[in-house]
């Protein structure tokens, strides 16, 4: 028999109370990504054949740099939230579920930081 109270046993097993925040941030980033994705898809279609100098000139445009930073932050954040739900739904083993979510989140936030740094380095550079 356990000496722990029923309340102490129940604590920590239920909702972590951040489901609404997850839901809300997914929608917020989704709305931000409507114009950003249309612009980004068009830009990639246009600049994927660009030579190095054209590309650097494009990244020097302040509007382009800011839009790219916004796109990378919103899309990697949105991806982290979305991939988390997919993992939660399909990975049954508890430790594998938790460790893959941690891994995916760290990787996506590292990518966001690296891509934002890359855009800013070119934008501020010579």
């Amino acid at each position, binding site marked *: 028999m356990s000496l722990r109270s029923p309340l102490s046993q129940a604590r920590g097993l239920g909702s972590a109370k951040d489901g609404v925040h997850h839901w809300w941030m997914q929608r917020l980033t989704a709305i931000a990504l409507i114009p950003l994705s249309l612009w*980004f*898809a068009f830009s*990639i279609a246009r600049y994927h054949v660009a030579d190095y100098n054209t590309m650097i000139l494009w990244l020097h445009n302040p509007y382009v740099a800011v839009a790219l930073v916004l796109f990378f932050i919103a899309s990697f954040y949105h991806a982290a939230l979305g991939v988390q739900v997919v993992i939660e739904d399909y990975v049954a083993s508890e430790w594998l579920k938790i460790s893959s979510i941690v891994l995916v989140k760290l990787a996506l936030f590292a990518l966001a930081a690296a891509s934002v740094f890359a855009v800013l380095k070119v934008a501020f550079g010579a």
Partner: protein
Amino acid sequence: MSAKPSAKPVVSRPLSPFMLGQYYRFQISSLLSITHRITGVGLAIGTLFIAIWVMSAVAGPDAYARFAWFARSPIGLLLLLGWSWALMFHLCNGIRHLVWDAGYAFEKKSVDAGGLIVVAASVVLTVAVWLVAYLVPSA
């Protein structure tokens, strides 16, 4: 230590069958639902490569040239085309989800019609993006 409640299911309860397959009649919503997830995961991976594209420009002309060579190859073009369609599909179906979140279009007819509109719009937008990108002269 007492047994942790709900750590392990005592009886293995049956799961409802997967939405596509022999157990349910085909409907466009379930197909688009799984397509939304697949394109979502695909886009996460695809955006990784595009982030590398931007980073390659920082690394210098040689690194950028290597990436540009791949982006211009038939496989690179095919991947870009697939990526752009996946993005347009996820975008359109995402708007469909936002409409549902706002509380609209839950009738069976509007759900089916919305699905067809999303598929059509994703193709039209993909074609439009590439046409505009290639046809409009740069400033």
